[in-house]
């Protein structure tokens, strides 16, 4: 039986993206249509970047967000999200997490990293910043769930901001993941 998908904020609201990064007007239908078609309940997680560096933020890598202040900010949001996750887990529902591949904060398997990025934002287009790893918000989310004794949920990352994104391949991946 389908459960509850906790999705990255931008999956329902592309207006939260870094300027230049919105792939559609608002709701990202390739994910939402699969979730609803398969009978999943949708829960939107807050965007940690939006409330920390705001809408006019620069395109950033993990290292720029990896500060104690940002992690504290994430933990405050995570505490709210895990409260909701706990409710559903207690009621016996399957909970999954949906992140954003390539994101410094919401990445699941791929994040962005460049230890040398700093100063005036004038780096070469297509800089090689994608690396295997998790975003900072997801690290904090897992850590809080573990601390509260909640079993690690299944996770999946949306790949719409990766180079060479293949919509049909992503749809097959989503159908397989949410159809299980």
């Amino acid at each position, binding site marked *: 039986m389908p459960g509850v998908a906790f999705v990255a904020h931008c999956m*329902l609201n592309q207006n939260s993206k870094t300027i230049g990064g919105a*792939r559609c*007007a608002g*709701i990202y*239908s390739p994910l939402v249509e699969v979730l609803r078609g398969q009978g999943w309940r949708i829960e939107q997680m807050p965007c940690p970047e939006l409330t920390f560096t*705001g809408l006019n933020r620069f395109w950033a890598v993990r290292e720029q967000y990896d500060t104690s202040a940002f992690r504290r900010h994430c933990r405050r949001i995570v505490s*709210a999200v895990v409260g909701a996750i706990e*409710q559903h887990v207690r009621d016996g529902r399957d909970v999954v997490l949906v992140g954003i591949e390539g994101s410094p904060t919401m990445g699941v398997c791929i994040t962005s990293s460049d230890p040398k990025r700093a100063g005036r934002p004038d780096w070469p287009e297509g800089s090689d910043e994608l690396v295997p790893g998790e975003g900072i918000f997801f690290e904090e989310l897992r850590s809080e769930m573990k601390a509260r004794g909640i079993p690690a949920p299944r996770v999946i990352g949306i790949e719409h901001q990766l180079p060479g994104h293949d919509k049909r391949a992503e749809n097959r991946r989503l159908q397989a993941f949410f159809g299980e």
Partner: protein
Amino acid sequence: MTLRDRRSYRVAIVSDRYLNPPEGKLDAVPILLQAEWGAIQLPADDYPSAVANPLLEQVAEQVEEFCRRGYDAVVIGRRDGLDEALAAAGVPRLDRIDPASARALQAFLNRRPAPAARSSRRRTAGNKR
């Protein structure tokens, strides 16, 4: 970043019952998609306040940033504690609808003026050329 940014500069704060509607009830998602609005989901009505209040605080902080940057923001539906959370975050009173039908919601969204942020972004882009 060379891709065209497709954001609408329009954000609806939406009751959970319209995003995860019970069978046969009003479903806001197809309407928001068609009208090109983003959504910020309100906590489910059955969440206890200990769960809902921290989530409402997050909603309010996000809405405050959208309002400050000139995005259009409206409320669809209602949620106990929302007004207090928005006020605490310094969000001005937002236009709202408790839609009686899909048509009423469509009409409400279609009547909205152009968001200030969209025109100022276009002006900025124009100045660069």
